[in-house]
């Protein structure tokens, strides 16, 4: 599998950076509506994975992974993962024809209503109306459409419709708000079977989250290296001290590995060669690497890295929450063991 970036991907990256670099101050409510609009309207990356028949770009998840990487680097508060990756994947697998065009033309922010971490709760369906509670849903804050798995099917639910309550949560990651959803006899339209759709969406999400984590780790490494080059203590740049050098070299090694792993995962979910294994590997590796890069970023910045004013903490919070979301590294190692026939102790 080709693990390099293609020329198209490199030029997409350039366009994204031009756009995202200019939007540094995150909005208070954790959603940058203007960037979200531009990503859809100008760059057309929100509908990147939507098939061309439905007005999308018909690209693969590999390109979407590149977008995730840049959104991670700039910590841009937009619901790309939930809408453009997970919802689109779920809709495609469930056989949707109605919602996908609305994502492609930018008219709907669609959220997959699953917890960002932990097991799927029960939502009951009686006479086409849904009732249940789904906690800690990401990328659903101001969504127009909720995709709710219930009773074996995936339902389209109007987020502003009757019976839907969204309660914002105080998220640890202030740049990715969570909400608790309560459905009380909310009308839903069935789209198709849920289990495979949700499974594929979560697998694609986990695989591409690795690219976001790569972007986060790269920002942390780059920012720390730049600080170490210029911050003077004891009459010389702190980056000239060997202990600092070696720690940053170690971070570079693991970020370099994350790049190979994230590219591999993006490729594997794109061509469906071994999506589960690749996603589990990616989350087992790239999550902890991002956490460590962010921790070193805070530590090597010293006092300033511990302040609210410096953005390091935003990356730290993003890194830690993504290492828990869609399964911890330990959970993914367990899944890998199963896929590799590496039986744990006590099993037959």
């Amino acid at each position: 599998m080709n693990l390099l970036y293609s020329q198209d991907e490199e030029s997409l990256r350039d366009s994204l950076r031009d756009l995202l670099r200019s939007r540094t101050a995150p909005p208070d409510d954790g959603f940058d509506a203007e960037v979200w609009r531009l990503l859809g309207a100008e760059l057309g990356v929100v509908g990147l994975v939507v098939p061309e028949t439905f007005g999308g770009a018909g690209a693969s998840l590999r390109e979407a992974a590149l977008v995730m990487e840049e959104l991670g680097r700039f910590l841009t508060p937009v619901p790309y993962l939930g809408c453009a990756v997970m919802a689109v994947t779920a809709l495609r697998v469930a056989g949707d024809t109605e919602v996908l065009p609305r994502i492609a033309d930018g008219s709907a922010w669609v959220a997959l209503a699953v917890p960002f971490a932990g097991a799927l709760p029960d939502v009951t369906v009686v006479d086409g109306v849904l009732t249940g509670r789904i906690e800690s849903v990401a990328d659903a804050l101001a969504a127009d459409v909720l995709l709710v798995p219930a009773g074996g099917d995936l339902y389209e639910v109007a987020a502003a419709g009757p019976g839907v309550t969204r309660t914002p949560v105080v998220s640890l990651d202030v740049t990715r708000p969570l909400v608790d959803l309560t459905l009380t006899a909310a009308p839903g339209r069935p789209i198709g079977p849920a289990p495979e759709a949700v499974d594929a969406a979560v697998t694609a999400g986990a695989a591409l989250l690795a690219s976001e984590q790569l972007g986060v780790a790269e920002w942390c490494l780059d920012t720390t290296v730049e600080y170490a080059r210029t911050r003077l203590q004891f009459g010389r740049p702190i980056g000239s001290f060997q202990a600092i050098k070696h720690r940053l070299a170690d971070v570079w090694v693991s970020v370099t590995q994350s790049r190979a792993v994230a590219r591999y995962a993006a490729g594997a979910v794109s061509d469906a060669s071994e999506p589960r294994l690749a996603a589990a590997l990616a989350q087992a590796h790239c999550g902890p690497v991002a956490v460590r890069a962010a921790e070193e970023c805070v530590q090597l910045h010293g006092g300033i890295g511990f302040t609210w004013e410096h953005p390091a903490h935003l990356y730290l919070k993003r890194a830690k929450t993504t290492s828990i979301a869609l399964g911890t590294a330990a959970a993914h190692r367990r899944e890998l063991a199963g896929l590799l026939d590496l039986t744990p102790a006590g099993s037959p």
Partner: protein
Amino acid sequence: MTDVRELARAFRASAPADPDEFLRARFDAGLAWVHYPAGLGGLGVPREQQAIVDEELAGTPSNDPRRIGIGLGMAAPTILRHGTDAQRRRFLRPLWTGEELWCQLFSEPGAGSDLAGLATRAVRDGDGWRITGQKVWTSMAHRARWAILLARTDPDLPKHQGLTYFVCDMTAPGVDVRPLRQLTGEAEFNEVFLTDVFLPDDLRLGAVGEGWAVARTTLMNERVSIGGGALPRGGGLIGVLTAFWRSHPEVRTSAAHDEMMRLWVAAEAARLTGVRARQQLAAGDPGPEGSAVKLAFAELAQRITGLELELRGADGLRHDDWTMRRGEAVDFEGRSPTYRWLRAKGTSIEGGTSEILRNIIAERVLGLPAEPRTDTTVPWRELPR
């Protein structure tokens, strides 16, 4: 020989009831810190005998050790060692009773690990000094009456030689205290802007140009005090984690179990190291083990709180409150898991970074040679900044 127990009992029998008056009387009776000289709250007896006093006076009014921590741990020993008689008499009593709080004006935005590189200037002005500069990481500055302050009196000397140590009047004009918000969302510390602050010369502690030597007394005492108190086995952060494990069977996985047990072992090893360090201290043989305790605590605090968030899963994604508040005390056990995890990131930065601590261990404990230095012999003014 002074019978400390006898004195403490006698004092208790006739001590005033009002808490403030009680503390003042206790100071005057020499029962505040028995190893301090008579007349300054002590009896000039060995430090170990304090335990007898504390035992005899258990249940009587006392001050919050966290509230007076900086004064007690850092300002007091420095004033005792380097202050004039008048300074000792002026400052030590209200410091100990808690009537006057203290803070520390050492760190600056450009001088963290490299404290001796600080830029705050002190310029002679008649019978006093004019101070201008910016200090950071000052806890309690918004409540403090006094501060210990390190400032540069001669920029033409090498960095360590041009410093002078002052007591700063926090009520003086030109002292501007602003909250410094941390990644926990609250402001536990402050930035302090000093603009042409006038300090009379009798607030100078030690000779002009001797500030670094005076500051070493302060810093040595900071390191001693940071080791923290004795915890029971399984106490502190590891206790929080194991309690969560015991009460939440649904979060238990085999990988997390082994990781938790690794942390338990590491925490118990660190705890026993602290116990042994205190035994050495009590035996009159203080060793460098305190540094080992601080380094280990910082790493443990970060690992334990990190694992707790992972165990909590979705709950680990949720914080309690980001509104800007004043936080005056670190509370690892009483607050939310996300607060714990975030606040723990400071443990390897505050009070000497783990990097500086490793330097100190390597050079002072292990005797490894210093790195080539380029900053200690040239005038401070000429250093790259």
